């Protein structure tokens, strides 16, 4: 059955990765369309006139914007395969709380980590370390954030893993050494086909950001 799903996305977006993972988890076929963020397509501007951002999920011609909202939509349409939200209301609330926490606390600092220098970057580093500490504590000894099953919060955060190498190099952050539990969690998630397919290669992200910083900020991170 052709569901006619189009995803407008950007390969390195940790938000777009969430929606890709959700669609793969459900085994739903969709058309992926890469957006040039410096030259946004008329379709993107038409489908997301308010924010003009990716990812945009278009289902039977109707747009759904905001990645966590898209993931919940996908889960509600295909509830029987690989449920993403738990069925218990309290557990659902906890999942939504932590997805909201990740969104509220990472958006600004994560952008500054790769696009800024000096004080602004330092401030962003402090903020992001706090987020990692909090998430590390929340994960504890569980396999996934929700317990034994892969779910919403894992989907909300796993995309950031593909950016860890970039943050370490470009912002001089120590992540892998300091947060072994989070790294194990990420490796566990990567064993799932949906995640392995959705996440780009970390080195590719780093190269893209380094090139950007060279051009825009005049910083050559890898001077010989």
């Amino acid at each position, binding site marked *: 059955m052709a569901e006619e799903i189009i995803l407008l996305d950007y390969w390195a977006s940790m938000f777009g990765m969430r929606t890709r993972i959700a669609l793969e988890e459900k085994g739903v076929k969709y058309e992926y369309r890469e957006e040039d963020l410096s030259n946004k397509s008329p379709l993107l501007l038409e489908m997301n006139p*308010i924010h003009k951002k990716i990812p945009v999920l278009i289902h039977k011609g109707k747009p*759904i914007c*905001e990645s966590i*909202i898209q993931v919940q939509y996908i889960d509600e349409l295909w509830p029987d395969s690989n449920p993403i939200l738990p069925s218990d*209301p309290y557990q659902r*609330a906890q999942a939504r*709380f932590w997805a909201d926490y990740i969104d509220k606390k990472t958006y600004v600092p994560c952008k500054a980590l790769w696009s800024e220098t000096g004080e602004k970057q330092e401030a962003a580093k402090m903020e992001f370390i706090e987020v990692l500490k909090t998430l590390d504590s929340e994960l504890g000894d569980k396999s996934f954030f929700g317990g034994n099953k892969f779910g919403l919060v894992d989907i909300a955060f796993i995309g950031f893993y593909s950016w860890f190498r970039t943050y370490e190099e470009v912002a001089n952050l120590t992540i892998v050494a300091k947060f072994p539990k989070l790294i194990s969690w990420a490796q566990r998630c990567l064993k799932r086909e949906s995640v392995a397919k959705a996440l780009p290669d970390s080195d590719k992200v780093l190269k893209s950001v380094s090139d950007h910083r060279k051009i825009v900020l005049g910083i050559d991170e890898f001077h010989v």
Partner: protein
Amino acid sequence: MNQEEQVKLMGLWGSPFSKRVEMALKLKGIPYEYIEEDVYGNKSPMLLKYNPVHKKVPVLIHNGRSIAESLVIVEYIEDTWKTSHTILPQDPYERAMARFWAKYVDDKVMLAVRKACWGPESEREKEVKEAYECLKCLEKELGDKLFFGGETIGFVDIAADFIGYWLGIFQEASGVTIMTAEEFPKLQRWSEDFVGNDFIKEVLPPKEKLVAVLKAMFGSVTSN
């Protein structure tokens, strides 16, 4: 009802976030014990225990467990108590739209209005224009519906409680005008219907008290 089942709400008398939860509980006919928190003064040990991540209100305590973040709490209430008043639509696409607009109110509109009313004079014109544009989007979304939720008060109406009641008060206290009845006839009509609803008006904080507190907190930005 035993102690465990009892619903408690830790809130702040003047906060639109806190009131969203009270509105949802009232609409659903769920009895609760209200606990006023001195958030700006002395945060109680209870608050720090039940919301260690954000240390903010509102916090709902049900069956001895806590849920934080107002819109997460409202969804929890909807998931837990199946009564005749439904807050979210059944259709997944309509639900996604409701979540999108509620997030829009939270992320964009409230911040824009706060900046416009209380931000620095130098930014006033720019911020008022931004807030005006945000409200125009909501005016368009409301259209000819009675409420954002359709025939009855729904998720977006509750999320937009700030616009229904607090916006007018912010305008009065700050001396800054963003929304007028002439420019926003639909939102004006909606806010009158919203605050006129029996369940909603029961929980609204007294206007004079709010004006006095706002003036004391921020001062009047235009000449008295």
